[in-house]
């Protein structure tokens, strides 16, 4: 995704806008891996293969997302590690 998508992206659950962006891996203007954070409800949404995944909790795959978080462990904000929603990396380690 590109930065300008942030202008319209909102949390699918509470519609909070703007979302906070954490970039892990970029290629020129394109963000390939990263996280979008909702400061309202505390949910994170992964950006994988350049595509933000913004599904509701019941359609998210815990195993896949925790694996993604583990790959970027060093770049995660502490609140996602300790208290991430819907999945906590800390309790899975």
């Amino acid at each position, binding site marked *: *995704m590109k930065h300008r998508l942030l202008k319209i992206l909102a949390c699918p659950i509470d519609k909070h*806008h703007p979302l906070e962006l954490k970039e892990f891996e970029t290629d020129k203007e394109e963000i390939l891996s990263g996280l979008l954070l909702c400061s309202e409800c505390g949910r994170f949404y992964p950006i994988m293969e*350049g595509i*933000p995944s*913004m599904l509701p909790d019941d359609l998210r795959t815990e195993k896949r997302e925790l694996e993604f978080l583990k790959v970027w462990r060093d770049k995660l904000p502490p609140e996602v590690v300790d208290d991430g929603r819907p999945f906590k990396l800390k309790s899975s380690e």
Partner: protein
Amino acid sequence: MHSNGGLKDEWERILGVLSQIADVYDKVNRVISLWQDTAYRQLGIRNGISNGNIILDAGCGPGVMSELVLSRFPENSIVLFDPIMIMLRAAKIRVSKNSAFVSGIFEKLPFSDNSFDAVMCGYSIRDARDLDVALKEIRRVLKNEGGRLVIVELGKPDNSLLRRGVESYWRFAVPLLAIIRVGKRGILFSALYRTYLRHPTNATFRSMLQSLFPLVDFQTRTLGASVIAVAHK
């Protein structure tokens, strides 16, 4: 079965099937629509999309609708949106310029109010979990000034005889045509009969749209088996 639409409890199963047929979906859709799908998509685009629009392609699948829009209006920006990652990957290969890709569902759109000039749903809205909630979410993200919802979809005739005819086509002919076109996996297309059964009749669908949008242009084709609608916010 008459309903107000949406796949409800069958949604996850149907989406699982769609993931398995993602790579051939487009090919088969062409055959089962009797080669009319592109013409109907073009009609929807002509009726509801303008130059310079910011568009949400909701339920983009492999990106067929967006590709048609960008070939007509290369300056438009499109967000291609689908719950299925395999579909988005396929769409990303098909459409590259002026496009962004987001994964999510109709009923929980991850966009701010008042964001898009047009939302288009090409053969996708019947796969919503809850049609009424989906339409309300679409209305929310459309711009207050001139926002339009463009729907190209299978239709369910109001006349019971025609309806039975179209239902039989979906039940018996579609899986057969799919098997002829793509082989053994074609049998999975029989799941699409369920999505058709769950879909509301044309009259019900039209009144659902009219209850949410002040101006609705609702056209049917092929004896009511196809719908091309533009709803203005």
